[in-house]
């Protein structure tokens, strides 16, 4: 049996202070110390820190990643293995997470595929991150650097800051402890006889060209479909390296708190045997798509699964991976529910996916990403509005003279998340 205790350290407020510490649920941040951590990377010229709280008239854009700070208190390895910590298998022992807050990295990278987080107003309803106290790290690149060199600099800076803040909780007593237990294949079958064997198949964005995800530090597009203990993600085994449409990319926060994993654990031992997590990629070449989906289906069969939940990341090209996976896994007799989102046009009248199959008879949707929303002018912008017109979901008329913004919800970070992280849907 593998067991992970996840301790919640509730953060109710963030303030800048002379010393970084957590006291009575308040995170005090030593601005200079955090800046020094960000500027360790010579590719980052400068950075500014800011704090955005729920309900404030604040807009954060362009958002790259959202990260929940965590610390490994007991057990093998450390947070973000193969990325920040040394490579070691994680997912056992004791981990503390700073709940109710996140580190948000912002600033221009690609420009058109970074998102918007509004802390109030109608836009706030569409992003899960408006409910958090956010420490925003706005980075600025050194001159002349190429985007693919700069993206990892900001990616790593966010992780370093998150790990630094997570460390502040090491000696604290958690406000709440969740326990996650998983079994070996034989052990589970013996302990939970008669319960349907279920896995979570997660498709990781790996189209390349800044559409990437990393597993223990390995670029997911260079991986074969494989098996993980579902608790590994809780220690940061999977991280985002994406500059994909903001609405349906999985920020690192979503990987750490994957909803499917948590909700399958809720049923584990009661109505199902949650056997494992299977990860697979979304490469652009047909041969890769065929190989990866063959492997997921094969693993589902090998593990004698009865059912799976299959989640997607991104849209269009990955729709073909989604349907291939679904078709092949269903063909193995494994009942499948897929989670996706839709691009049904601004009028909602177009076909929502780029591929379809009768095997996909159980679909959860995160909603139509083309829906247009008008975001009000907010008092403060953290980052810059320079890219609102070119962001995916925006157009040349998005930023209007009165300061309001008309965009598709595609531009809002997490709006139509395809791991089922949010509440949005469509019919």
């Amino acid at each position, binding site marked *: 049996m593998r067991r992970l205790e996840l301790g919640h350290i509730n953060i109710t407020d963030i303030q800048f202070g002379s010393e970084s510490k957590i006291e009575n649920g308040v995170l005090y941040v030593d601005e200079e110390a955090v800046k020094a951590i960000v500027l360790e990377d010579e590719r980052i010229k400068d950075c500014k820190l800011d704090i955005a709280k729920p309900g404030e008239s604040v807009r954060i854009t362009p958002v790259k990643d959202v990260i929940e700070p965590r610390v490994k208190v007991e057990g093998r390895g450390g947070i973000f293995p193969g990325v920040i910590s040394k490579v070691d298998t994680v997912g056992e022992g004791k981990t503390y997470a700073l709940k109710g807050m996140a580190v948000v990295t912002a600033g221009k990278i690609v420009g058109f595929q970074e998102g918007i987080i509004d802390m109030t107003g109608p836009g706030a309803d569409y992003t899960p991150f408006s409910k958090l106290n956010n420490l925003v790290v706005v980075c600025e690149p050194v001159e002349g650097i190429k985007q693919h060199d700069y993206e990892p600099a900001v990616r790593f800076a966010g992780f370093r800051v998150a790990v630094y803040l997570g460390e502040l909780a090491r000696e604290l007593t958690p406000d709440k402890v969740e326990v996650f237990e998983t079994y070996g294949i034989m052990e589970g079958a013996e302990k939970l006889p008669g319960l349907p064997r279920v896995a979570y198949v997660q498709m990781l964005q790996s189209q390349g060209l800044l559409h990437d995800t990393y597993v223990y530090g390995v670029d997911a597009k260079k991986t074969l479909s494989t098996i993980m203990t579902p608790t590994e993600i809780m220690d940061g085994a999977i991280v985002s390296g994406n500059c994909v449409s903001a609405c349906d990319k999985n920020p690192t926060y979503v990987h750490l708190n994957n909803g499917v994993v948590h909700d399958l654990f809720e049923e584990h031992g009661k109505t199902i045997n949650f056997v494992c997590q299977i990860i697979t990629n979304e490469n652009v070449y047909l041969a890769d798509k065929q190989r990866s989906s063959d492997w997921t289906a094969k693993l589902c069969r090998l593990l004698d699964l009865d059912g*799976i*939940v299959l989640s997607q990341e991104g849209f269009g090209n990955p729709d073909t991976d989604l349907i291939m996976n679904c078709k092949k896994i269903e063909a193995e007799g494994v009942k499948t529910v897929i*989670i996706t989102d839709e691009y049904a046009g601004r009028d909602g009248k177009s076909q929502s996916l780029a591929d379809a199959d009768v095997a996909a008879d159980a679909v959860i949707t995160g909603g139509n990403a083309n829906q247009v929303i008008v975001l009000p002018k907010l008092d403060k912008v953290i980052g810059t509005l320079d890219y609102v017109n070119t962001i995916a979901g925006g157009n040349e008329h998005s930023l209007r003279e009165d300061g309001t913004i008309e965009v598709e919800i595609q531009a809002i970070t997490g709006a139509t998340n395809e791991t089922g992280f949010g509440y949005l849907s469509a019919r």
Partner: protein
Amino acid sequence: MIKVVHYINQFFAQIGGEEMAHIPAERHDGEVKGPGAAFKAAFKDEAEIISTIVCGDSYFNEHLEEAKSTILAWVKELNPDVFIAGPAFNAGRYGVACGTIADAVQEELGIPAVTGMYVENPGADMFKNKVYTVPTKNSAAGARDAVSKMAPLALKLAKKEAIGASCQDNYMPNGTRVNFFEEKRGSRRAVDMLLKKLADKPFVTEYPMPDFDRVAPNPAVKDISKATIAIVTSGGIVPKGNPDHIESSNASHYGEYDITGVTDLTEATYETAHGGYDPVYANEDSDRVIPVDVLRDMEKEGIIGKLHNKFYTTVGNGTAVASSKAFAEEFSQKLLADGVDAVILTST
């Protein structure tokens, strides 16, 4: 107070059954008939039925234009805030009449309309994408349930309030996807759906897959050197000038063109009618879309038996699958009658 005009057939107006289906349209101002009473109760003091229009099902369908124009003139004069037709349950002609008149009231008078019927009523497939159609039971036993869903939807339409997703405002999915916030997050809904699927219990997918009508290819032609090959395309290749005016998008018909003696399609003789792709290369040389030149060579060399002297063409751009199917069903019979052995089907 919101003004409602209600349309029902002779049966629900208690005039009679099939034997009275021939009666022309009647207008009963200030009267509430049949299910109108239930609507009246459901509206409380928010709305009133100012007139009930009754028409025999046979009359409506057999004198369509006359019935439509009479009723439209009445509704125009009455100028209600919303028009309600039915519910029609599983009565086929009644369902079609409800859909037809509700659609006409919306389109021609700009007055919002709602109807209700059983999902398998032919009127549902015909009109659910045009008129908000509440799914009902298949008999009048479901009247109370039908009215309880149609009435609030009618009030919302009358008040010009935003209409929610089909599952929220109880209408049949109408091809327009509408976003809304669920009570449970997506991952929890996925787990719940999986539990039902595992237990072989019914569940409702949130996005029904569009029907992809996949057709298995026929076995290979045994001896191609003796076969008559025809060309069919959705790439829109037509004789110069598009003589049959095939639409550039959402085509309503196909063309049949004789290519007896034609060995090459040139810029002067053929072009594409298709509006969905850059036509420059197809117009320069339509053989790029339908390879008449190469097939003539193969015919001469004896690789194929014969190129059929007619080709069939339409525009695939935005054309409804139902139209494409109807075109193909018709010209396939012609191809068979002409002794064609195989078809090369090109798209763009």
